[in-house]
């Protein structure tokens, strides 16, 4: 009797295991790939139509990417990045030229201020029917803006980064709930602030310093629309700042014109060290609106994007360069216009010219470029950055630190060459 019962239990358990494992396993896939890019630039400062000085810089970037699909509803992805920054493309070289209050680098003999090896992305994705759960170090790239993304509040962008395309990974969890094919709710909870600082503070563990975001996406005929709520947490020289935003985003087109718009409106409930000013919607609104169009007669892509940064300054006398150096802001001013033209020619050649105008102080930067696809996986390009503007304008690049030290962020004219091998 005991033996018969034991056998029955084994049969039942085996049947249950077989039922639960049914259709669970698909073919496991592994994929490793990446790229090696080198960016070299020479920069020149002109005064009175003469070249006063020149500097150089180089960045080497090796990016390794891996995808694993151990079974049907699981996916793992990682990206490892090795970067070497030298010359005027190493921000530490720039910081050495002025006194920013940081200890000198030679006091940190075990730190490497030139080479950096990081695991930038490392996340797992689990599909649970109509819910996806993603956790790890994730690129949370919200928004459809081309240059500016008001709704991306998890990372900053370095003004000096001209090599990598990828969005930095952020520690956190992202969850998506799919309600059919027309609507989705997406939410994230991040475990680090927007600055991605590499040191700890006693306030790191406080619950109110956890950033989050939530949005609903709806697919319509002409436009995809989303709206949501975002809490941004940013560590600055003054400690943690917390802001709440209402966000909207739409992407689509009318006729031949592709259109998009992305907004983030800061709510009057934030606690910052500089709070106390009367709330103004214009000063708390961030908006990127743009469009793209192909002029078929001349085979040229035209792209325009207008950006309003409410917290920016419309008067150059109020510019605070430290906001750029600490990556609190990407740009200083209030209103910008981006225009670009791109056209292929011959075989595998492409010419482009982009420009960014500060509409408040009249300064601008032009960046023409020519690129050539030598082989399927090897591309070279050459181009230039040309900065122009009157004294003390943003793209003139000359700023005073602490009222005494001079800092030139842009240098009048730069020539660059870039090579990229993908494997």
């Amino acid at each position, binding site marked *: 009797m005991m033996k018969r019962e034991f056998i029955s239990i084994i049969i039942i358990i085996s049947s249950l295991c077989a039922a639960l494992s049914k259709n669970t396993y698909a073919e496991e896939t592994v994929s490793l790939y990446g*790229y090696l890019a080198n960016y070299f630039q020479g920069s020149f400062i002109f005064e009175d139509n003469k070249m006063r000085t020149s500097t150089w810089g180089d960045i080497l970037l090796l990016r390794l990417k891996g995808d694993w699909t151990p079974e049907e509803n699981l996916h793992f992805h990682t990206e490892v990045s090795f970067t070497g920054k030298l010359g005027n493309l190493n921000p530490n070289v720039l910081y050495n030229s002025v006194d920013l209050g940081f200890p000198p680098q030679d006091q940190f003999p075990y730190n490497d201020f030139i080479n950096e090896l990081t695991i930038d992305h490392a996340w797992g994705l689990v*599909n649970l029917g109509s819910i996806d759960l993603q956790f790890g170090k994730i690129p949370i790239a919200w928004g*459809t803006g081309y240059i500016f993304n008001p709704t991306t509040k998890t990372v900053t962008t370095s003004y000096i980064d001209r090599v990598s395309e990828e969005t930095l990974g952020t520690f956190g969890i992202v969850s998506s709930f*799919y309600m059919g094919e027309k*609507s989705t709710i997406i939410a994230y909870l991040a475990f680090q602030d927007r600055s991605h600082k590499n040191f700890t503070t006693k306030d790191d563990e406080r619950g109110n310093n956890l950033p989050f975001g939530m949005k609903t996406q709806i697919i319509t005929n002409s436009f*995809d629309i989303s709206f949501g709520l975002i809490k941004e947490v940013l560590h600055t020289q003054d400690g943690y700042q917390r802001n709440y935003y209402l966000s909207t985003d739409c992407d689509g*087109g*009318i006729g031949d014109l592709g259109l998009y718009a992305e907004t983030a409106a800061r709510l009057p409930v934030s606690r910052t060290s500089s709070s106390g000013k009367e709330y103004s919607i214009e000063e708390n609104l961030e908006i990127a609106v743009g469009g793209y169009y192909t002029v078929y007669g001349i085979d040229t892509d035209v792209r325009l994007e207008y950006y309003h940064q409410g917290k920016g300054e419309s008067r150059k006398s109020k510019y605070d360069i430290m906001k750029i150096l600490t990556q609190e802001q990407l740009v200083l001013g209030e209103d910008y216009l981006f225009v670009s033209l791109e056209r292929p020619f011959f075989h595998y050649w492409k010419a482009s010219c982009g420009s960014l105008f500060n509409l408040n102080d009249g300064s601008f930067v032009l960046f023409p470029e020519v690129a050539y*696809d030598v082989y399927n996986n090897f591309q070279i390009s050459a181009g230039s950055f040309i900065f122009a503007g009157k004294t003390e304008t943003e793209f003139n690049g000359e700023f005073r630190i602490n009222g005494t030290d001079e800092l030139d962020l842009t240098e009048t004219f730069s020539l660059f060459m870039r090579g990229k091998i*993908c494997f």
Partner: protein
Amino acid sequence: MNKTRAVYITLLFVLLFSHAYTDEDALSIIRKVDEKQWIETSKSELSMLVFPEAGDENTFREFKVLSYCRGNEDSYMEFLYPRTIKGLKLLSKGDDQWIYFASTGRRRKIASSLQSKKQSVKGVGGDFSYEDLGNGKLEEKYSFTILENLKNKWVLEGKPNKDGSVYSCIVVHVDKSNYLVTKIEYHTEEEGHYKDLIMEEVKVISGKQTATRMTMINHDRESKTVVIIHSAEYEVPIDDKYFNPTRFNK
């Protein structure tokens, strides 16, 4: 006299109904073509060779693509090679299309206008436009008449049923023995005879006759693109996520 009149009336009826019979024949031919091409689902791996000069066989760029299709409305494409665009994904659902750029992690909707559909895929190029990569039954998109009834094939002309088509008309060559399309000529208002799609190397894959080599010749640019199907599976289960605009990139 009565006899003569009767002959004329008979001839008149024959002419009238032969035209109607021919049109019905065109419709039934196209329906059989659509039926032959119809699939519930498919998975395929293919290569796309882009020749910027059709006459130069040595200069080309190669792209490898994983493609999933569901009915004639939904298709998903993921680029595997070259490595510069590995992970680029394209979803077509009816008239709407989305593209996902793996390097930036951003998904964009493609303006679904006439001219945008005429463009080739960004970052890929080639002579297959977004409209060509989209789906739909020939019967639903065009109205056909028979141009030629040859020994081994029919040649049919199709005019678009809706205003949203890139092409002003297409000319379809159909093999009589198996109702497979062997060639499609694409015509536009601007360029005239714009492109030719030639279907060759028919093989039986998963029980279905499939043209495994498709060549699109662009007469305006004098370029061509060749698509080679390496493997295909039909009527296989495909996860719905590949056809969800908010999910296909994950």
